[in-house]
């Protein structure tokens, strides 16, 4: 039997009011409005390709990422806007990236699935499901090798846990962790579905974390709609990981309110009713209600946050809209550092 413990987090003690919580609420509201804007702009044809929004899952990125310090690194999949924004990426650059503009944070070369902002500790944005997990493990090794104090957070979906690279990465991290060489905080964003396939239909055992424990990595299941709970766990775990250099895994149970991607209109795999039920546990509403209680947050405060979010989103869209397309010469840069490509058609 896996010796590692599985903790179902006990209800977190009601934390005291702190200004930070308002910042987190402000961030989550902003991210929601940002995502809604991307959906709008996609429908207008301003954003192309695949678009995967994060609405409903905001507490996960915000709860974890606000616990990080400079020097920490984040890797995630293609549903990556919230992670970049939580890390402090400029929303203008993020929106411009989605618009495929030269001012985008990946110079317009990556798009929605490949946001990158290394300066802010964001190491991307990957499109092959589960493919980024080994990268995160290697990054953590590098940090310890260089005797840095940082660690790595690696987000991934429930569906990603079925692909081989997940397992290879977990085992290697479990092994390296024994030597204190693998401080990765794995965060399962368990939103119940891989595209249209529910966890019950894609995983032989729905206790997903059992797989992680099988690699000697401790796990903890957290209510992914409750940013208090997530942040509480993150604070505790992060401190411990910096010290031990060992991995840890949080299974955040959450839900995605929108379709899998912008093309997922019909959603034949779930009922409207199911979605509505989950909207009753909107992470933003949950946080608002808590802050009303403990901080005396009022309607006015919320309105102000909403207004500010709307304004910042509008600004980002305007910036993206007005930015120029990438210079055609950019086609050939960043392929390699040396011995770049020979143009064939130009």
């Amino acid at each position, binding site marked *: 039997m896996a010796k590692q413990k599985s903790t179902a987090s006990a209800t977190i003690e009601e934390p005291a009011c702190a200004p930070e919580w308002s910042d987190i609420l402000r961030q989550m509201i902003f991210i929601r409005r940002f995502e809604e804007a991307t959906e709008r702009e996609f429908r207008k044809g301003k954003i192309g390709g695949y678009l995967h929004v994060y609405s409903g899952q905001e507490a996960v990125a915000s709860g974890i990422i606000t616990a990080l310090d400079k020097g920490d690194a984040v890797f995630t999949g293609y549903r990556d806007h919230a992670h970049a924004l939580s890390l402090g990426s400029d929303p203008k650059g993020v929106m411009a990236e989605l618009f495929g503009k030269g001012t985008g944070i990946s110079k317009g070369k990556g798009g929605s699935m490949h946001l990158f902002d290394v300066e802010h500790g964001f190491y991307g944005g990957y499109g092959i499901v589960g493919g980024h997990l080994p990268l995160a493990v290697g990054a953590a090794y590098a940090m310890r090798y260089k005797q840095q104090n940082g660690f790595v957070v690696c987000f991934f979906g429930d569906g990603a846990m079925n692909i081989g*690279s997940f397992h290879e990465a977990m085992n290697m991290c479990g092994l390296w962790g024994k030597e204190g060489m693998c401080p990765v905080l794995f965060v399962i964003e368990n939103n119940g579905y891989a595209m249209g396939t529910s966890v019950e239909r894609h995983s032989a055992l729905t206790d997903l974390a059992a797989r992680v424990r099988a690699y000697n990595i401790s796990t903890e299941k957290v209510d992914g709609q409750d940013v208090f709970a997530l942040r509480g766990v993150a604070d505790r775990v992060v401190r411990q990981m910096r010290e031990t250099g060992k991995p840890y895994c949080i299974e955040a149970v959450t839900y995605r309110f929108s379709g899998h991607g912008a093309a997922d209109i019909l959603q034949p795999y779930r009922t409207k009713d199911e979605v509505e039920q989950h909207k009753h546990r909107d992470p933003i509403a949950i946080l608002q209600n808590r802050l009303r209680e403990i901080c005396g947050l009022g309607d006015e405060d919320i309105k102000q946050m909403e207004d500010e979010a709307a304004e910042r989103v509008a600004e980002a869209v305007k910036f993206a809209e007005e930015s120029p397309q990438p210079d055609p010469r950019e086609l050939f840069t960043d392929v390699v550092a040396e011995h770049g490509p020979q143009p064939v058609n130009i």
Partner: protein
Amino acid sequence: MAEKSYRDAIRDAMMEEMDRDPNVLIMGEDIGVYEGTFRITAGMLKKYGPKRVIDTPIAEAGMVGTAVGMAMLGLRPIVEMMTVNFAIVAADQILNHAAKVRYFSGGQVDVPMVIRGPHGAGVQLSAQHSQSFESFYAHFPGLKVVAPGTPADAKGLLKTAIRGRDPVMFLESAALYGMKGEVPDDTNFTVPFGQSRVAREGRDVTIVSYSRMMQMSLLVADKLSKEEGIECEVIDLRTLRPLDMDPVYASVSKTHRAVVVQEQWKPFGAAAEIAASITENVFDELDAPVVRVTGEDVPMPYARNLELLATPHEEHVAAAVKKVMYR
């Protein structure tokens, strides 16, 4: 004959074969309940049930590998890749298992299976989702590699693939899914592998291509005919392994000039094989070097303007045709 889309032709091929042979089944990610990202499999779960229309986890190596096992035991699995890009994750299962088990078993097993899905550039899907793998797979003995350019071929070749005894990489052009064309009604209509087709006759220049680039070449040929009186002969290879070069040689012996068009990156792409073979076999017929029209040698960028610059267009084909005519 009926007018059918390329998409429906693929779907019809699968359903007719599933009706005909209970050993045919299909598996893939989100092909059942979700009905397929390109809706090729829409309605199939309902019709054939979950034992024959299998929604798999995200596990490409597992999908392909289980299909190999099924095929060795006598089933005829079709594996739908959500896009053929993801088949890289299963490269070992395709190249080291599906393609080789017949050989290293000394011929004790058949491996009748098809791996199919949309292939090539889409629209702004960026670097990991916009690749062309035909030369990659066609290098490996033991596989068949098919790249249909018309609805009729999509249907006829897919039926051949499903009825065959070997593993097939069936590369569909997502950009052609909506394209319509005449498709024979006969449920026994098939198109054999290894037979290139003269898609358009012409006396001046031979254009060799397949899949979407073949369709683009036809447009260029028509335009050049109308506007400049240049008559291109367009050869549609249809299958890259087996590769039928004889019609190409025959055509080049007539036109003495050849252009090869592919969407892939130029270096070590399929056009290199075609060009090298032409030179090797009908060198004395050539009045000009064989020219390749290809995509730019860069990972696919997201920005639409860059993406458009990364893929070959009609004007590039036209320019190549003129080049081999020294015009």
